[in-house]
């Protein structure tokens, strides 16, 4: 089926390239028409967990802090200054003169109401992990608030610069998450003027966007987001001029689209990293992976660099520790590097008592061609990996129930640029920790709970080094995201996979 789809895409694209007309639907009226393949269940940012929901949230609302995606530096946004009062208390000075789209003035009540509402589990926020570190928010005066944390959580600033957006309190109290989804009201550079659930969301430039915002004043007048589930249909619309911008284009299709004269294709490295987990803990369903020599043999067997060129795509890079290189605390300094060395892999397998290799199930849920490449490399050294391809939820269940010991996984860290959003997920004795090394857990805990950056860096470095030394996972590479868009649109991709249309413009 996949092969046929690919063949069809290639054939049709090649045929259509010859006839394609200028594909710049939005240039004439200074709008950008874009498409996504998933419907956010709610436009309320705390009640959806899909990528397009995150993208919309950054355009409709603002956060207390802004992280500059170019420098990763924190900048004032809705707050003008912040400080740690103690390990569990953050204080914010709020900006004067900011207005929400409905004309309401922004102040401390908005921050307090929003954070207290979404952090209460009984309010059923879907994105619990983004807010479950908040104990409460407290109003000090009209333009000063304190956020009390449940426990020391230095990555709090990163969350406050990302998914934790601020709502107008009176409006949110009146309409609740349902009303906020139907008619979102924020303070961001774009305001929602039309929302047809499951079909399209139309945003218009906010003419009263506050001038001191770290987000530049938007230039594009209208953004129209259409939900088109099928990737081939999105491509057809882009080529026919019905769309100006699409993302997550499959690499092979991206190569074809490069030949269309009216389009541009750009690959951007994303924060999503790919890795293979190898259950070596007590409850492993694959005891063979308990042997460190076997785990090292697996890493040596895979030519990650070659995979980048053949199946992964441009802008990706090989990683040597389990984190995205730009994340705070991520480093491969001092960690061993395992080169591609099939001879050494075979030798290690022989030493471990598997001169003829062994059979093992490899679980996967996306990037199937990459998993198949891995299987090919493993077979070359005698490891007969059998592909078990399934939906993400099913794979995760199997891992948590100790039925899947060897899995091809990816993790996007929720675009949080801090290693606490990545490595601890798999190494802090959670249900996803299939290794359970107390030393790693303690090091990560030290990094997760100190508010001193230097202490955190050392703790994470030692944890990542220990994980690499023990070969607990196979760190593979970062994943690229391919964007295809009209040639005259100025666009810049970022690793957090969030397009920033307030920055872009038509040439």
């Amino acid at each position, binding site marked *: 089926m996949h092969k*046929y789809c690919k063949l*069809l895409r290639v054939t*049709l694209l090649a*045929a*259509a390239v010859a*006839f*394609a*007309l200028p594909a710049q639907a939005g240039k004439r009226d200074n709008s950008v028409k874009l498409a996504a393949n*998933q*419907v956010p*269940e*709610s436009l309320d940012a705390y*009640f959806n*967990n*899909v990528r397009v929901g995150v993208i919309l949230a950054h355009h409709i609302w603002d956060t207390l802090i802004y992280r500059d995606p170019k420098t990763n530096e924190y900048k004032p946004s809705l707050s003008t200054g912040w400080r740690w009062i103690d390990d569990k208390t953050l204080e914010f000075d709020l900006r004067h003169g900011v207005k929400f789209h409905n004309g309401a003035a922004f102040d401390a009540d908005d921050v307090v109401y929003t954070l207290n509402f979404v952090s209460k*589990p009984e309010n*059923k926020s*879907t*994105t*619990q*992990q983004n807010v*479950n570190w908040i104990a409460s928010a407290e109003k000090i005066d009209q333009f000063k608030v304190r956020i009390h944390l449940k426990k020391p959580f230095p990555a709090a600033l990163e969350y406050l610069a990302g998914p934790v957006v601020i709502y107008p309190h009176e409006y949110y109290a009146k309409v609740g*998450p*349902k009303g906020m989804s139907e008619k979102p009201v924020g303070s961001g550079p774009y305001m929602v003027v039309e929302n047809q*659930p*499951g*079909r399209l969301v139309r945003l218009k430039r906010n003419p009263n966007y506050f001038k001191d915002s770290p987000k530049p004043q938007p230039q594009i007048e209208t953004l129209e987001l*259409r*939900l*088109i*589930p*099928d990737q*081939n*249909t999105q491509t*057809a*619309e882009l*080529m*026919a001029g*019905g769309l100006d911008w699409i993302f997550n284009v499959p690499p092979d299709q991206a190569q074809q689209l490069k030949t269309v004269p009216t389009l541009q294709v750009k690959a951007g490295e994303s924060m999503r990293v790919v890795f293979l987990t190898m259950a070596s803990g007590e409850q492993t369903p694959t005891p063979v992976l308990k042997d460190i020599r076997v785990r090292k043999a697996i890493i040596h067997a895979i030519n990650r660099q070659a995979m980048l060129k053949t199946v992964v795509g441009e802008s990706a890079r090989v990683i040597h520790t389990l984190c995205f290189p730009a994340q705070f605390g991520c480093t491969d300094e001092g960690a061993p590097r395992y080169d591609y060395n099939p001879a050494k892999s075979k030798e290690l397998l022989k030493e471990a008592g598997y001169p003829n290799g062994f059979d093992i199930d490899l679980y996967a849920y996306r990037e199937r061609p990459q998993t198949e490449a891995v299987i090919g490399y493993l077979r070359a050294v005698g490891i007969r990996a059998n592909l078990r391809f399934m*939906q*993400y*939820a*099913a794979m*995760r*269940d199997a891992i*948590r129930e100790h039925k899947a010991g060897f899995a091809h996984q990816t993790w*996007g860290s*929720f675009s949080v640029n801090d290693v606490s959003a990545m490595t601890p*997920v798999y190494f802090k004795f*959670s*249900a*996803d920790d299939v290794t359970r090394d107390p030393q790693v857990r303690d090091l990560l805990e030290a990094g997760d709970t100190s508010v001193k950056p230097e202490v955190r860096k050392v703790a994470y470095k030692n944890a990542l080094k220990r994980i690499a030394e023990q070969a607990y996972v196979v760190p593979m590479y970062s994943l690229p995201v391919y964007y295809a868009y009209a040639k005259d649109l100025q666009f810049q991709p970022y690793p957090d996979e969030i397009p920033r249309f307030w920055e872009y413009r038509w040439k």
Partner: protein
Amino acid sequence: MLQYALKRAVLALLVALTVSLICFLLVNLSTDVATAMAGEGATAEAIDVIRHQYGLDRPLPVQYVEWLGHAARGDFGDSLYFRTPVAALVLERMPTTMILGGAALGFALLLSIPLGVVAALKPNSWVDRLTLTIAVVGQAMPTFWFALLLMFLFGVTLHLLPISGGDTWQHFILPSIALGYYATPAIMRLTRSGMLEVLESDYIRTARAKGLGNTSVLFKHALRNAVAPVVALAAVQLGFLLGGSVVIETVFALNGLGYLAWEAIGHNDFPVVQAVVLLISLVYIVLTLLADLANAWLDPRIRIG
């Protein structure tokens, strides 16, 4: 006749119940609904909170019986994903699917009946072979493939028709052709065989002997009789087309029941999956029931046998 109708109606109800049970079991056994709802990044604790909040930690029979009781009163609960009443979601999406189904069936009838008649008039000729080829291609080609071909030809290359969406009637042309083509072969074959049978019958020979013109014989006498079974088949095909709308609506981004089903399956939104499957099944069952009753009314041998 009444006894026959009642018997068929009870059977139809049992089929509907079985479908709902199978659907419920398949959704629940394939994966953990709470994990799917929580999304990729959720911790085990967050998933547990969601499982408890939505009552997903109760035994499956309890969940099923509760759902069935509410469904009988028209309450399908709230969508786990969209967090709105399922009944409202389904009603909102229904018209698109009905328009698509109706238009697709219309296209199928418009294409297949003339082709079937032409094939019957010239059996085993090149015309017959050509119509057979059309039928075979329609049956063999996956609908999504055909849909993409149409899209690239009429949308990308010729710029004649819109590619996706459902804002205007033009948006329904390509999806209706793609969906309707799938139903064409069955209707065409039935028309052809019906026409062949009727054209051989005594009363047609009599009509010809009376000196009636070819057109009159064909349209006034032969076609009217040959097409009767096609009407029953068309009702059943409409059920198929509604089921087939899952693929077509997804490919053409039409916001109907099929697309809703696709979204719901992807998010393990089992109240929506069950409601849509049940609804489409009910439509199919009702159409089949009506076709059965119509046949029985026309042909007493069926209700006696």
